[in-house]
């Protein structure tokens, strides 16, 4: 973390502070004041849009708040949290989200890494063109790209099933099957590898060539040098991409909303955690309960991040200088 390359509170620039203490004081004071003035927008925004709402949402999660009847709000203690344990829909939404994370996150990471290695290869002609093309779908509005994929995945007129049919495989009804809808969304998700690919690429470019030479002298083949040189060196970016991808899964919304018209169809198979939260809050107006769900989400995301940072010591390489 290169958060603070500039030493804070270093020695004062004035050559002889003792000689002119008052001038020094005012300069220093003015610098403090200016700094605070410039960051003031963020401080105000943090208080208004992060700190106070966080407290408010914790309080709301202890009530049965409904914005249609704001005056009838009652304090119900931990009932919302107890309710979670008995809420089969919530459990289903957690199940969908976890299944998607287990199924799709490793595949997406693997695909992004493989593409990054491909477009990093010195044996590839026109590398920049390929990088641009693999990044391109990131730039397509998510609703539009989901609409395109819904067409591609159509059971009869979609090209995916036409392609499968031409080699004799029966294509499933991707988006209407409780079994196939998550793999279908995973396939759609491959269009979002752009950022991951670029971050992997930066990691791959930071691998010192001498290490490969040394590995070759030691008789390592391609797979061995990938495992013992590439993977360790890029493990920090792999770790970063993993955390971002897991958090994104718990925030997953747009694609699920568009393919199921906001209902989580078929049979709640696409009722992701975030979609369920949206429905509780803005379709049923159970805003007390939705606040509690938001806190559950926060605890899960924070817990996952901490857990991953714990395990990171075992597998994330930290070079001498970092």
């Amino acid at each position, binding site marked *: 973390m290169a958060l*603070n390359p500039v030493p804070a509170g270093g020695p004062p620039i004035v050559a002889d502070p003792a000689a002119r203490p008052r001038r020094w004081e005012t300069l220093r004071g003015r610098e403090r004041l200016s700094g*605070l003035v410039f960051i003031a927008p963020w401080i105000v925004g943090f208080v208004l849009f992060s700190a106070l709402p966080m407290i408010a949402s914790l309080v709301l999660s202890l009530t049965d708040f409904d914005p249609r009847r704001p005056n009838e709000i009652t304090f119900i203690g931990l009932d919302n949290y107890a309710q979670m344990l008995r809420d089969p829909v919530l459990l289903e939404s957690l199940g969908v989200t976890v299944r998607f994370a287990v199924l799709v996150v490793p595949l997406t990471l693997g695909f992004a890494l493989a593409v990054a290695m491909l477009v990093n290869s010195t*044996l590839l002609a026109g590398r920049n063109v390929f990088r641009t093309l693999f990044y391109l779908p990131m730039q397509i509005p998510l609703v539009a790209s989901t*609409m395109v994929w819904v067409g591609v995945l159509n059971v009869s007129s979609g090209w995916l099933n036409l392609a499968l049919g031409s080699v004799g495989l029966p294509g499933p009804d991707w988006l209407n099957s409780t079994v196939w809808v998550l793999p279908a969304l995973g396939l759609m998700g491959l269009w979002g590898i752009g950022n991951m690919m*670029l971050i992997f690429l930066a990691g791959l470019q930071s691998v010192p060539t001498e290490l490969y030479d040394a590995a070759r002298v030691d008789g390592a083949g391609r797979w061995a040098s990938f495992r013992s040189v590439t993977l360790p060196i890029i493990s920090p970016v792999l770790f970063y991409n993993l955390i971002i991808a897991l958090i994104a899964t718990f925030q997953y919304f747009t694609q699920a909303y568009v393919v199921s018209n906001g209902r989580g169809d078929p049979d709640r198979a696409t009722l992701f955690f975030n979609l369920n939260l949206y429905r509780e*809050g803005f379709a049923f107006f159970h805003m007390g309960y939705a606040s509690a769900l938001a*806190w559950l989400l926060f605890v899960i995301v924070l817990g996952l991040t901490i857990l991953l940072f714990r395990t990171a010591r075992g597998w994330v390489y930290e070079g001498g200088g970092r």
Partner: protein
Amino acid sequence: MRAVTAPLDRPMAQGSPLRRQLRRLAAVSGTTFLAIAVVSAFLMPLAFMITTAFKEPSQLGAPGAPLYPAAPETFEWEGRDLAVYDVPIDGTIRALALVEPHREDAVFIDPVAPEAGLIEWQGRWRTLEQHWTFQLRAENFSNAWNAIDFPQVFFNTFAIAGLSTLGAVLSGICVAYGFSRFRFPGRNGLFILMIATIILPFQVTLIPTYTVFLALGWVGTWLPLIVPHFFANAYNVFLLRQYFLTIPRDLDEAAMIDGAGSFRILRSVIIPQARPAIVAVTLFHFFWAWNEYFLPLVYLQSTPDLQPLSVALSRFNALFSTEPTLIQAAAIMAMALPVVVFFFAQRAFMRGVVITGVEK
């Protein structure tokens, strides 16, 4: 996986230089062909989108229809419109117009050479496939354009994305300047706190902010989508600050000696020097706002006239889900601007991703 091990691809290989060059040429073409195959499969949905957007709706379900936009060919002969079929005659397939259909045989005429006269053919004409010719249908675009009311939707999107970008960039520059050029107590703590807000899920603050905006009468207006961005966001500040730190302080000090105050220094030294980072943040934020779905859905659900592209498009998608040709035409129109801008500014985009992603 040859990609990663490329640098050690036997630079000391045995054999003459010519053989080595040939071997390298083979490796390069192999890798490049592999990449072309992968990227073609990867971008195949775009080809689906473009071809479907130009098709007649009737082509989608038609058996034997080609993948490209086409219409069944007809031939006008003696005042009649005749359907053209692919007819196997003497081992070749000819496109012939059907003049007289019977049960077990039929009479055709060759549209290319009608003067050659009628052609008798033995067989069931119903088993023949229609002959398709390439034909683009542009009405899908005008129909989708009118059904979505694109001019209004584009105006809404530009207004929301433009104003929120203005706020995000101005406030981001100020805050990044404050964090990168001034020393004040608690600076590092505040900076870490700001970075920490990145992992705070927006859902946690969503309901109280919604409630407050509801009380202010802002739900059903653009204000909740614009005003919060005037208070700086951690990603933008981080990217700008990293860039500001690379600008030599000598420039600030020279300006200070000339009597410039901190605002003057920001305006005449920092901003001109940091143009690439400011461009990147502007583009990122603008297209992030262009694509944003959740919050516009929450705040503008009941005011369709004010909705931006993302929400209007999904409403259109739900209404016209049985008309894929319209859906794909709408998708093309929705992605045209971001994609074109991306091709012109791809370096700024890709560099920005790496700065925010890797240097953290």
